[in-house]
């Protein structure tokens, strides 16, 4: 399986509307249309994130109990 998500097709307007609904948001139509126009640039950004890191590459800001 490829780690490259940029090969995926872009979400359609209907996809975006469904995702917004699934997130529990009930936006007026005008605001929803604005967001449908904006989301593709964010989708492309997220899909550019490199994947497939080793298990030792943990997230930044891991929990540090010694800081308590």
């Amino acid at each position, binding site marked *: 399986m490829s780690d490259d998500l940029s090969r995926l097709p872009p979400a359609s307007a209907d996809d*975006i509307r469904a*995702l*917004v609904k699934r*997130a*529990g*948001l*009930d*936006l*007026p139509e005008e*605001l929803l249309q*604005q*967001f449908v126009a*904006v*989301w593709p*640039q*964010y*989708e492309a*950004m*997220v899909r*550019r*994130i*490199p*994947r497939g*890191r080793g298990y030792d*590459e*943990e*997230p*930044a*800001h891991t929990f540090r109990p010694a800081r308590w």
Partner: protein
Amino acid sequence: MDIPLLTIAELRRAYDQRELSPVEVIRALLDRVAAHDARLNSFIRITEDIALAEAREAERLLLAGERRGPMQGIPYGLKDIVETAGIPTTGHSKLRQDHVPAADAEIVRRLKAGGGVLLGKLATWEFALGGPSWDLPWPPARNPWDRDRLPGGSSSGPGAAVAAGFMPAAIGTDTGGSIRGPAAFCGICGLKPTYGRVSRRGVFPNTFTMDHIGPMTRSAEDIALMLQAIAGFDPADPGSEDCPVPDYRAALDGGVNGLRLGLVEGWHDGEGAHPDLAPAIAAAVAVLQGLGAVVEPVKLSSLRDYTDCKTTISSVELYSIHEPDLRARPQDFGRILRNRVLPGALIRGEDYLAALRWRGALANEQKRAFARFDALLTAGARTIADRADPSAPDRHGVTVSITMPFSISGVPALAIPCGFSRAEGMPLSLQIAGRPFEEATVLRIAHAYQLATDWHRQHPTLGPTLD
């Protein structure tokens, strides 16, 4: 003596020699604000009565020989996401238009205890992210160097107000460059301290893991003085670090002879960069070399990578902050903020984690660079200030950012003036980044540069007084 353009250091000397009093200074600044801010919009609220009362108290203590610290009797402003007890703190947003905090932010408590004089609450992009916006209760701030241009953001009011001579210092906040950008566009100095160096308690959050609070002034020396007043551990801020605070003013005078500085390749030139920027940075490098610094090129990941990583993380954290309002009253957000917050609802958990893991790798490449270099150099901004155009498309996350790399790593980074564009006469900026908690080294380099140059002593002409 042109009171509005005096630095913190100059005001302190004038107070010590009893050539000026804090009340006299506040009155001069209030007059200047009254004459010019209607065309700059840098203030959301002028706290005249508080300023005069605090100035009188500072004057009384100074005359009594009681010293409270480097900000005693010094006027300052606060970006309006910094909470002030009893004074509205709006976030420049309809959502908090009437919000009056019960308590001061920790940095306000420190500035008050140190005798600082609050002149007012300053414009910001909506909640330090959404801007420039023309659909908010207050207009966007303008750039004092050219009122048809913007001061950058999100600390737009602090940038404009300090450059305009309304105050010698202001507090800004910086998640992806919101101190350094306005400092660069307005021809002043702005420091994003190390993550954890200055308390975030009582400051409206933007991105929990990347929010920084810092000073904006007209000299590196003044940055050192204001940082001294606000730096230090706060157990009530989960990100605060308990490590010693050095004497930043005393550390300024070491010079740069023998320091090793890495000039990051490919960030400040190429596509999208202003053509005058590369020569200005080259000239700044030559000044530092002339003072004895050793400057070598260093290669880091692309600005595209850093921008993608930071924006992904920010989008998710932003959404978690604004979700309740977005559900209840989405129409009360400015359009730009709403459209920058909403993506966080659609970014998957695994994408956020992938970005956090990437962040670790990007921070580690800087750690390796800082093993070779005492500091890294690049530009404070890749362009000059944008024109004020309400119809301009939102390029958030599309245009690469030259400030986000040091947001990702959390290291201290300072923007200082280093020239002007030839055609437009707009400020250009040098950015100096240092190892974690080595603000003193960054400031020492900047101070040496400013002793050898006078870019930071150039001030905009504000034009005729308003009647």
